């Protein structure tokens, strides 16, 4: 730490309330300066576009596919109750929920396994978890198209085990499969961090107090790892709900999800106000989920 600059009388060596106040002020100023780059970035490229989206959602689409920033109305929000929009909304919610649950069930045992290994094995396996990020997201999704598609490895396997030629591509199953694949690391990492922090002697204590392995998990490990469960679930649920690439590549036209529907509004239907309204509602849903989940988690901890 560098010495704090004295406000006025530099020769004074005796501490004064003024000196202390100046020191505290300088400390908070330093903190603000450090955060300034990210503050400016967020305001410029996050807050401003967000405001634009909100403003557009109240605007009117004109006959030529443009947007008139006049005649403010709620027409776009009214359209949300249309059956087709509702179906898409619920389908998206359901698939995102399913993806989150599957990720949780797969990731939890793995994260526990990881957290109980030696540091060397741990780090090695964490690298394995992160390897997929080194390849482009789009490319990886296209790879799944090859795996699941006609004459792909998947159909080869179903044929080999006598299930006949099954095709998964362009189905909800394929979308969930792809989403789980894409977002699994986001579940593993926070779970691992949470479980790793738990004192393993607490599990020993529970076993000593007559808990079976399952009770030990249910009554001690799970409640204590709740912060990881919550963080991981949000990190998976939120991007799954708004996913565009995976449903588009693996889901085909039969399973339109919210992400693709919004893109359609902006690019094909050229109804920017409606697209903006959908985006805003999606964001509101995510925000609510997050807040509720955190609150709930906060209470049980």
């Amino acid at each position, binding site marked *: 730490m560098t010495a704090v600059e004295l406000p006025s009388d530099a020769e004074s060596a005796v501490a004064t309330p003024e000196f202390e106040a100046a020191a505290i002020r300088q400390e908070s100023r330093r903190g603000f300066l450090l955060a300034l780059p990210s503050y400016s970035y967020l305001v410029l490229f996050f807050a401003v576009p967000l405001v634009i989206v909100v403003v557009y959602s109240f605007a009117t689409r004109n006959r030529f596919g443009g947007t008139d920033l006049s005649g403010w109305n709620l027409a776009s929000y009214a359209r949300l109750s249309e059956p087709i929009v509702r179906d898409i909304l619920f389908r998206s919610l359901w698939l995102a929920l399913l993806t989150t649950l599957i990720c949780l069930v797969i990731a939890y045992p793995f994260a526990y396994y990881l957290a109980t290994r030696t540091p060397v094995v741990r780090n090695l396996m964490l690298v394995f978890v992160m390897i997929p990020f080194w390849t482009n997201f789009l490319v990886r999704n296209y790879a799944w198209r090859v795996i699941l598609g006609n004459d792909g490895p998947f159909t080869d396997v179903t044929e080999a085990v006598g299930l006949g030629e099954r095709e998964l591509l362009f189905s909800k199953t394929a979308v969930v499969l792809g989403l789980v694949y894409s977002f699994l690391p986001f579940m593993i990492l926070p779970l691992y961090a949470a479980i790793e922090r738990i004192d393993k002697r*607490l599990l020993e*204590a*529970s*076993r*000593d*107090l007559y808990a*079976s392995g399952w009770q030990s998990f249910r*009554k*001690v490990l799970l409640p204590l790892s709740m912060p990881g469960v919550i963080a991981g679930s949000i990190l998976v649920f939120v991007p799954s709900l708004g996913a565009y690439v995976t449903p588009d590549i693996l889901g085909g036209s039969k399973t339109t999800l919210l992400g693709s529907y919004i893109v359609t509004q902006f690019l094909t239907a050229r109804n920017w106000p409606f697209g903006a309204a959908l985006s805003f509602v999606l964001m509101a849903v995510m925000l609510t989920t997050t807040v509720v989940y955190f609150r709930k988690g906060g209470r049980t901890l």
Partner: protein
Amino acid sequence: MTAAVEITGITKRFGDVVAVDNIDLTIADGEFFALLGPSGCGKTTTLRMIAGLEFPTQGSLKIFGDEVGTLPPNKRPVNTVFQNYALFPHLNALDNVAFGLKMQGVKKSTAYSRALETIDLVQLSGMDTRKPSELSGGQQQRVALARALVNQPKVLLLDEPLGALDLKLRQEMQGELKNLQQNLGVSFVFVTHDQEEALTMSDRMAVMNEGKLLQVGTPEEIYEHPANRFVADFIGQTNLLEGRVVDAETVCLSNGARVTGFSDHPVGTEVAVSVRPERVRLGPRGESRPSETEVDGTAVDGATVDAATVDGAAVDGATVDAATVDGARVDGEVESITYLGNARVYRVRFDWMVIEVREENRPGATLHEPGTPVSVSWDPSAVSVVAD
């Protein structure tokens, strides 16, 4: 009577490391038993094997006659008070205490009422709704104790339970634990690295080092008759004077001086004479000495010493009588004094050896300033001759 815990030929290896090396140990019912040793000696591993948190590599482990060596912890009639307590941070004190009963399928209302009773027993009444983080170290310790005791274990295992408490609280808890154990009549097996704690609390204790069991006995047996050099050194303070056995009652120290020391080690065995600082008397040089014939401040008295054989150390033939009275006596000089409040510890140098002498700080006790020539003596029955 069946032993509470009976360990026969237990060995525990972690890879190449032998943590516990072929130990035999029997702990009686209703006994306060301390497992004592430096860190890494295998005492905690032994406790964990009794608890079922580690499985022995080899050997037999019985609790009240039943072989339990391969049973998981939840199938054993023992409970543990963990080091640093390992309280469940997400549960309040009451739920922590009721945990074991609930896991055993005890009805909720019964579990809670028994948990409350036990919380009263450990004097934590009114604290039952607090989370562990809202309790002080001493209170957490009591919750940990209650959490184990509420299950009415046949043997209570305690892993350094007082290690995290400050001195005052530790002494208080020592007394309370001892009382509790006597009232409940349950065997307590207590792991500690604090020899004083082991001495004051236990009915019997075992001293371990490097995975081996060195000595088992009452605190008095172990303090008075240490089995070997390590035990003598580890339990309490002692002066270890290196030497060699001359005959059944004499040891020749490495400076050539001979002192009385009874042992059954073969002649020529390298041994140490262990003299407790509080067993040593300190007096001004020459006092109670019939003659003053020493040459260079290194006088040694010994009934069997031939004056000609001792080089550099004048042997005072006239003190033969004194030797039979005082047992052993050396002359030296006070090098330094450590003030302990209730006592003073003098470091007395003679030749290259240093003997620590502890004198109680009684009114009128003579203060020997550093540099004072003094004479150090002790009773031969007060020393033990120990080999490695």
